[in-house]
C-alpha cells in the first residue's frame, strides 16, 4: 500500500499528516520524504541515519581526441546541453536531461558518461519505522530523478507513506504516480482551495483514488466543503487550528507528542484509506 501525501499549496500540513500517520501506524511502515528540495520530515521524526549515498545524473563527457566536430550530438539534443562552437564541442552539463541521445548518435564513440551530482539520499529508522529522504544539491534544478531514486526504496507488500512536494508539476507527478492512494491536505482558504483543485486535477489524470484532510479547519470559509461535495472527494479528517499544535510544530514536535489522543484518529484515517483504495 503506497499512500502519497500531496496538497497543491505549500504549508498546509502535508508533513504533519505524513509524520503522524507514519508514527501512529508504527511497525512495518516506511516513510519516504520526496520533497527533496525542502525535506522536512526528518526534523520531526529524528531518525538514526545508517546509509548515505550520492545520486548522480549521467551527463556527456567528450573525448576531444576522437571528436570530429560533426555536430550530430548538438543536433539530437533537445535541451541545448551540448553544442559545437568553432573547433570545440561544449557540453553544458547542468542543462542535460540524461537522455543518452548524444552518446548514442556519436559516430566516433567520442562521448562517455560523466556524472552530475543531483543530491544525496539518507536512509535510517526511528524504532520500527523505516525512513528515507532525498536532499537535492543546492543549485541543482532537476528534482524528479532524485525523487524516483528515493521511491526505489519502496518495499513491496508493506505500507509506504510518501511526503510529496507542493505544486502540481513534474516533481509532484514523480511523487504520486503509481501510488494506491493520494491523501490531499488542504486548508479552507481561497489559496488552499484553488491549489487543491489543481492537485485533484493531477490525481485524476493519473486515475488514483484520493481523499482530503482539512487542516486548520476552522480558519477560512466553507468553500472547500462545498467543492469536496460537488466533486465527490471524501473528507477523511479535519484538524482544527490549535495554537498548541502550531507551537509544537515550531519546535519540531509531533502532534502525537503533545496530543496523544490523535493516534486513534490517524489509525481511523488509515482504515478509511484502505477502504477507499480498494
Amino acid at each position, binding site marked *: 500500500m503506497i499512500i502519497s501525501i500531496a496538497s497543491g499549496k505549500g504549508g498546509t500540513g502535508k508533513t504533519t499528516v505524513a509524520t503522524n500517520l507514519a508514527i501512529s501506524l508504527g511497525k512495518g511502515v516506511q516513510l519516504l520524504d520526496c520533497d527533496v528540495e525542502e525535506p522536512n520530515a526528518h526534523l520531526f521524526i529524528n531518525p538514526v541515519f545508517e546509509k548515505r549515498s550520492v545520486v548522480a545524473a549521467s551527463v556527456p563527457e567528450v573525448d576531444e581526441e576522437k571528436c570530429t566536430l560533426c555536430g550530430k550530438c548538438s543536433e539530437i539534443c533537445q535541451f541545448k546541453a551540448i553544442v559545437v562552437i568553432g573547433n570545440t564541442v561544449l557540453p553544458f552539463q547542468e542543462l542535460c536531461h540524461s537522455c543518452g541521445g548524444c552518446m548514442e548518435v556519436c559516430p566516433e564513440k567520442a562521448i562517455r558518461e560523466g556524472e552530475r551530482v543531483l543530491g544525496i539520499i539518507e536512509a535510517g529508522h526511528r524504532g520500527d519505522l523505516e525512513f528515507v529522504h532525498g536532499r537535492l544539491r543546492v543549485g541543482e534544478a532537476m528534482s524528479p530523478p532524485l525523487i524516483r531514486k528515493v521511491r526505489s526504496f519502496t518495499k513491496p507488500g508493506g505500507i509506504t507513506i510518501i511526503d510529496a*512536494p507542493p505544486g502540481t508539476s513534474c516533481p509532484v507527478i514523480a511523487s504520486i504516480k503509481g501510488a494506491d492512494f493520494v491523501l490531499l491536505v488542504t486548508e479552507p482558504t481561497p489559496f488552499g482551495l484553488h491549489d487543491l483543485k489543481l492537485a485533484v486535477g493531477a490525481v485524476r489524470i493519473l486515475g488514483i483514488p484520493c481523499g482530503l484532510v482539512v487542516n486548520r479547519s476552522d480558519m477560512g470559509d466553507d468553500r472547500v466543503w462545498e467543492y469536496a461535495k460537488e466533486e465527490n472527494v471524501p473528507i477523511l479528517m479535519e484538524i482544527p487550528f490549535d495554537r498548541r499544535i502550531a507551537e509544537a510544530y515550531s519546535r519540531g514536535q509531533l502532534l502525537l507528542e503533545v496530543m496523544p489522543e490523535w493516534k486513534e484518529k490517524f489509525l481511523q484515517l488509515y482504515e478509511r484509506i484502505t477502504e477507499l483504495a480498494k
Partner: protein
Amino acid sequence: MKELVIISGKGGTGKTSILAAFASLAEDKVLCDADVDAADLHLIMNPTVKERHDFQSGHEAIIDSEKCTQCGLCRDLCRWNAVREDFTIDPLDCEGCGVCVYFCPERAIDFPIKTCGEWYVSETRFGPMVHARLGIAEENSGKLVTQVRQEARKLAEANGFQLILTDGPPGIGCPVIASLGGAKVVLIVTEPTVSGRHDMERVAQLADFFRVPVMVCVNKADLNADATSDIQRFSEGKGYAFLGTIPFDPVFTKAMVAGKTILEYDNHSEAAEAVRKIWQGLAGSMEFHEGR
C-alpha cells in the same frame, strides 16, 4: 529596473499575502506571479485579463501505429520507460528528448511542440500584472517563469516603471532558480519553525550561489520567539538584512477570504503595521520610495 523577488523555501509562510500587501504600498510597479505551478496572487488581485498567450515549450513523442513495426528500438533507447507494452507513449513519462524520434527506422514517431500552459497580461487595481497558469502535470515550469519575468520587464519598460514585485515559487529547484537570475534582491519570508528555518537556509544558500542579495523577514513570529531570534541572529551572521517580524494574525486568512490585501482589510491591524515597516526597510535599501 529593480526586481524584488519573494521566496521562502518552505511553502505557506505568507509570501503571496505579503507581496499583495506590498502592492498596496508601492507605486509605479508591475506585479509578477512567478509561482506558475500553483499561482495564487490573482485571487487577491482580481485581474482583468488584457492579453492571453499560449505557452509552448518542449515536444512530445507520439507513435504512429500505422507506420510502427514494433521493432522495439524506441523502448530500448528510452531512458524514461515511456514506451508502453502496446507501443504507445505515456505522455506523463515522456521527457521530450526526441531520441526515439531520431532513431526510429520507420520514421513512425511524430514530435509536435507542446502547449504547456498560458500566460497573461492583466490590469489590476494596483497596476499591471503578468501571471501564468502551467497546465496540470506539465513540465518546463522554469521556462514559463523566465517568460513571465521577461514580460513583466517589458511591461515595466513600456510604462516607464522602475519596479517589479515578483511572487516566487516554494522550494529550491528549477522554477526557483529561474526566478532568481537578474533579480535586484530577494526577500525570504520565513516562519519560526524547525522547517521554516531549515528551508530558509537552503534557499538563502541558493540565492548566495546566484549572487543575489538576501533580505529576511519572519512571519507568525510570536509562535516561537526563540526561533525568531535565532533566525535573526543567523541572518545577521550571514550578512543578510533582517527587515523585521510579523505577528501571527488571523487577519491574513480573513483578508484572503475577502479577496483583499491585509492593508485593505484592516489597515490598523498589527500585521498591517508590521508589513508597512518591513516595506519601508525594503524601499530604503532598494533606493526607491513609497508613494509620492
